[in-house]
């Protein structure tokens, strides 16, 4: 496949950026999107140009590092992570626009790399259970109802990639935060800190400068892990409950 790429190039956090056009050829439909970018970077390096900076780690869809906006869609046209997106979903001769996540709370570090540490600070404010650690507890020590276990698993799938924030017209982190809050708050282990968790995580989220939710649903459509939109309703319920008490 031969492709025209228009990629956001930005030398540093405060440098101005712009879309730069590149041609790549010899792309196999079986390559992942990141392998396609690797091919481009090899070429850029041989030419003595700066390679395109992008985040990646596991390349198997579990770490959440590889986010970028492809043709206006977070992680591109398929419901998966960029590392798991294959070139067969594009056509020979296509022009593909590649941009970094756009949100005030996710400043661009370089090219397609953004600083997502705002997410870490939200997690730090309550996305854990305060418990003495040690060897793994006996699995049956705390019975968990099946429905709660299913809900917790569904929400534990969030990999913190930030696609929800990137897709939201308000740069809102509600889906991410609700995935974490719901995951822990439905479990008996999370119950003691239930109210404080949602209060602190929502206020940490607000403090980072993320926007509010206007229920456009873009986040849930973009989420590679399928965190559902009603999760936000569940977090709202937790928050209103905690605010009353």
């Amino acid at each position, binding site marked *: 496949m031969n492709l025209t790429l228009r990629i956001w190039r930005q030398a540093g956090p405060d440098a101005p950026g712009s879309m730069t056009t590149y041609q790549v050829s010899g792309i196999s439909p079986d390559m992942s999107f990141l392998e396609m970018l690797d091919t481009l970077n090899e070429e850029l390096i041989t030419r003595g140009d700066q390679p395109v900076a992008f985040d990646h780690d596991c390349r198997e869809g579990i770490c959440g590092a590889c986010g970028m906006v492809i043709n206006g869609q977070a992680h591109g046209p398929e419901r998966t992570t960029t590392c798991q997106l294959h070139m067969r979903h594009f056509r020979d001769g296509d022009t593909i626009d590649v941009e970094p996540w756009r949100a005030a*709370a996710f400043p661009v570090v370089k090219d397609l790399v953004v600083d997502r540490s705002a997410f870490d600070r939200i997690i730090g404010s309550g996305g854990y259970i305060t418990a003495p650690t040690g060897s793994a507890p006996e699995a049956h020590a705390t019975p968990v109802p099946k429905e709660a276990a299913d809900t917790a698993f569904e929400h534990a799938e969030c990999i913190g990639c930030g696609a929800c924030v990137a897709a939201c017209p308000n740069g809102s982190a509600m889906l991410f935060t609700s995935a974490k809050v719901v995951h822990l708050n439905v479990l008996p282990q999370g119950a003691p800190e239930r109210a404080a968790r949602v209060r602190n995580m929502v206020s940490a989220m607000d403090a980072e400068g993320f*926007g*509010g*939710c206007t229920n456009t649903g*873009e986040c849930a459509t973009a989420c590679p892990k399928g965190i559902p939109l*009603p999760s936000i309703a*569940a977090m709202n319920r937790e928050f*209103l409950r905690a605010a009353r008490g």
Partner: protein
Amino acid sequence: MTTATRTARHPSTLATLWRSTVGKKAVMAVTGLVMLLYLVAHMLGNLKVFFGPDDINGYAAWLRTIGQPFLGHEWFLWIARLALLASVVLHGVSAYQLSRRDLAARPSKYVHQRRRASYATRTMRWGGVILGLFVVWHILDLTTLTVNPVAEHGHVYQNIVGTFGRWYSDVIYIVAMLALGFHIRHGFWSAAQTLGANNARRDRALKLTANGLALLLTAGFLSVPVAVMTGVVK
């Protein structure tokens, strides 16, 4: 020796709500639902125009006597007006503050733009502004009668026929009621989501209810100017 126990002081519930994006959105949802409830009653009352002048004029006179003798003349009406005023102000101020924040949270647009969300969802802000302006016009037209061509207090029927005899009045009402339909189509479901009443099982039913309410209110409100324009009510 005395031991003093001090529990950590939380800010009050109202302060917690108003300071957070989630809480402020809940204020919007509650005030929106208050206005929606009022609009359902208002729309049903308007339909009395189809039963003739005595019916609707009598209904309007009765509205002023609700709660008597416990309440004085028009007291109920004024209580309702104050509640609606509080709702519209809180709703508008929250919308303004949240919108400013939302716009600041996404300072740079994507170069590759894509059509997003439904029409109703995308027009909540401008639709809301249209509704706000409409409310001002509407009060000047049919409450204070400042801009009404007939302007006879107590003669609701005649004032209605008078105002809808003017093309621009019809245009204003039709545009506003379409805007209202869209606002409720997104707003009702959105309020359920905001207040935590939505879940995966209810989602579809809530969306259907939102569409039903939007359609019912828009059609019901529009039936009056349309009836005057077509001579059914004269």
